[in-house]
């Protein structure tokens, strides 16, 4: 197996006086979808934000595509080829959908073929292309947020809870788009609470608890073992539907 695209070794992160990540070890292989699962508050979002350099790791090492990025500033990390979709969407409401997309393209230009691919995955973005992003619905904003990461081919996509709080029909659209991204051979690290979506997309799983990765393995293994799910994260409560 080739080198992982992303490797975290013993990463610890504090936020104010709280010790959130207590030594995260994680490999994200190339060309696969790795699901980061776990209950609320175990450090999944903090892990993604630490990778992006928003929170600084106080110990440990983060290697991306062979280079140590632990101490790099956030913009440099983004430009080295990571497309990040934060949990709260973070779209720029005063700008148009088009301007949001152009900003996200490192080259400053949009490849028409790529744009058409995105339009097919998220038809509302075609409709509101020239309109202000602030007037989109919640689901459409989430589409824009993901489309922004997809506007260029990235070496790695970090996606935080893309289906959170969305209507079922939009969850389906979102899952289909992510599947297409996966089939195009992308490397993805995905945080997802909806286990049905996670099961359908994930190749590999890392389960977190208390600021550490406590289990890693194949998605098939976890999906086929209800007892394991229950033990690792009490999934029977959230993932049954």
């Amino acid at each position, binding site marked *: 197996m080739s080198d992982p695209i992303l490797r975290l070794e013993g990463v610890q992160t504090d936020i104010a006086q709280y010790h959130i990540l207590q030594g995260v070890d994680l490999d994200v292989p190339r060309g696969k979808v790795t699901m980061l699962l776990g209950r609320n508050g175990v450090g999944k979002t903090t892990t993604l934000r630490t990778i992006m350099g928003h929170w600084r790791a106080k110990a440990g090492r983060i290697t991306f595509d062979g280079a140590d990025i632990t101490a790099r500033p956030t913009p440099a990390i983004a430009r080295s080829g990571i497309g*990040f979709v934060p949990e709260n969407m*973070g779209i720029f409401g005063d700008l148009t959908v088009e301007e949001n997309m152009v900003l996200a393209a490192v080259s400053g230009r949009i490849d028409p073929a790529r744009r058409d691919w995105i339009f097919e995955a998220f038809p509302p973005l075609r409709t509101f292309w020239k309109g202000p992003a602030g007037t989109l619905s919640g689901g459409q904003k989430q589409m824009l947020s993901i489309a922004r990461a997809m506007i260029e081919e990235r070496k790695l996509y970090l996606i935080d809870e893309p289906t959170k709080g969305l209507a079922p029909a939009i969850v389906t659209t979102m899952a289909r788009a992510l599947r297409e991204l996966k089939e195009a051979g992308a490397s993805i690290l995905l945080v997802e609470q909806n286990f049905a979506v996670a099961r359908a997309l994930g190749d590999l799983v890392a389960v977190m608890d208390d600021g550490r990765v406590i289990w890693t393995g194949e998605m098939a293994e976890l999906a086929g073992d209800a007892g394991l799910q229950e033990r690792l994260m009490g999934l029977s409560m959230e993932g049954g539907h």
Partner: protein
Amino acid sequence: MIATLLSGDAPRSRVLSVLLLVVLVCLALAPFLFPGTRSLDTAARICVFILLVASYDLLLGYGGIVSFAHTMFFGMGAYGVALSCEFLGRSWGALAFGIGAGIVAAIATAFLIGLFSLRVRAIFFAMITLAVASAVAVLVSQLSQITGGEDGLNYQIPRALTPAFKFMEEPVFGVRMNGKLLNYYVVFVGALVGVLFLLRVVNSPFGRVLQAIRENDFRAEAIGYRVVQYRVAATCLSAAIAAFAGALYAIWLRYVGPSTVLSMEIMLDILLMVVIGGMGTIYGAVLGATLFVVAQNYLQELMGLAEGAFEGLPLLPALLSPDRWLLWLGLLFILSVYFFPTGIVGRLRDGR
């Protein structure tokens, strides 16, 4: 053609387009439409303030950066021209050098303030600009050997820009063809070019990144933009334009003093103009500055007329006495901020 000039950022409201056109035509033909020294002076002041307020809008409306040092940059441009003309003599070279030196000084100061303080939270940046601006104002009034202190400086600009210079013997439409007229058009064209340049800047990719940073700076960083660099660049650019506006003002007035170009009152006026006009639009600066300067100059007269009209009635004449013009100006602002929270331009665009 017009779309290119406006950098594709049309007014997007019929009423707004008409208002802007009226302002443009009135300012372009001011010497002929409103003859008289006082009205021409008001027109020149409007031109200068439009540019000054538009440059502040780049910072506040697009960059989300609150600065209290904008009059300081304005003053640097004005004192650049004044000192250069005072010490290098009356020549075009001295004038050009003064404009350039003022702009360079403003950029350098903005760069230093920005570099040291734009990493910290917005409120600290605002405080630091306030401190630096106050310090510079004190320095200028103390260094009376060079700056003339509180009295300011009177200096000579090239003769072609003064009333003494006549380029046609006969008046045209009753207007004397002299250097004062040329001077006005230098100010008008300078301001117009400056505003069109600012429109270009805010509609460029740079302007879009600034807006993105204003809305969500972490998100802008996470897609690869160096927030501090962009903020520093915006501060420098805005300072340069403010200094240019200051230079135009100094050319027009042939006088500078702390109270005309450096006072905190001007800073508050700029803030009011940008808020009343509509932040983050550039066009708001045009309407805000025009309304404000006209009100400042003519409200007293209007009230004098009103006082006369209501003579004999109880209370009303006393309320409308020209001495109370500041009260009414304040009232007008409170009402306009209350009814147009997004400024005049925002209101007009919403109501189209």
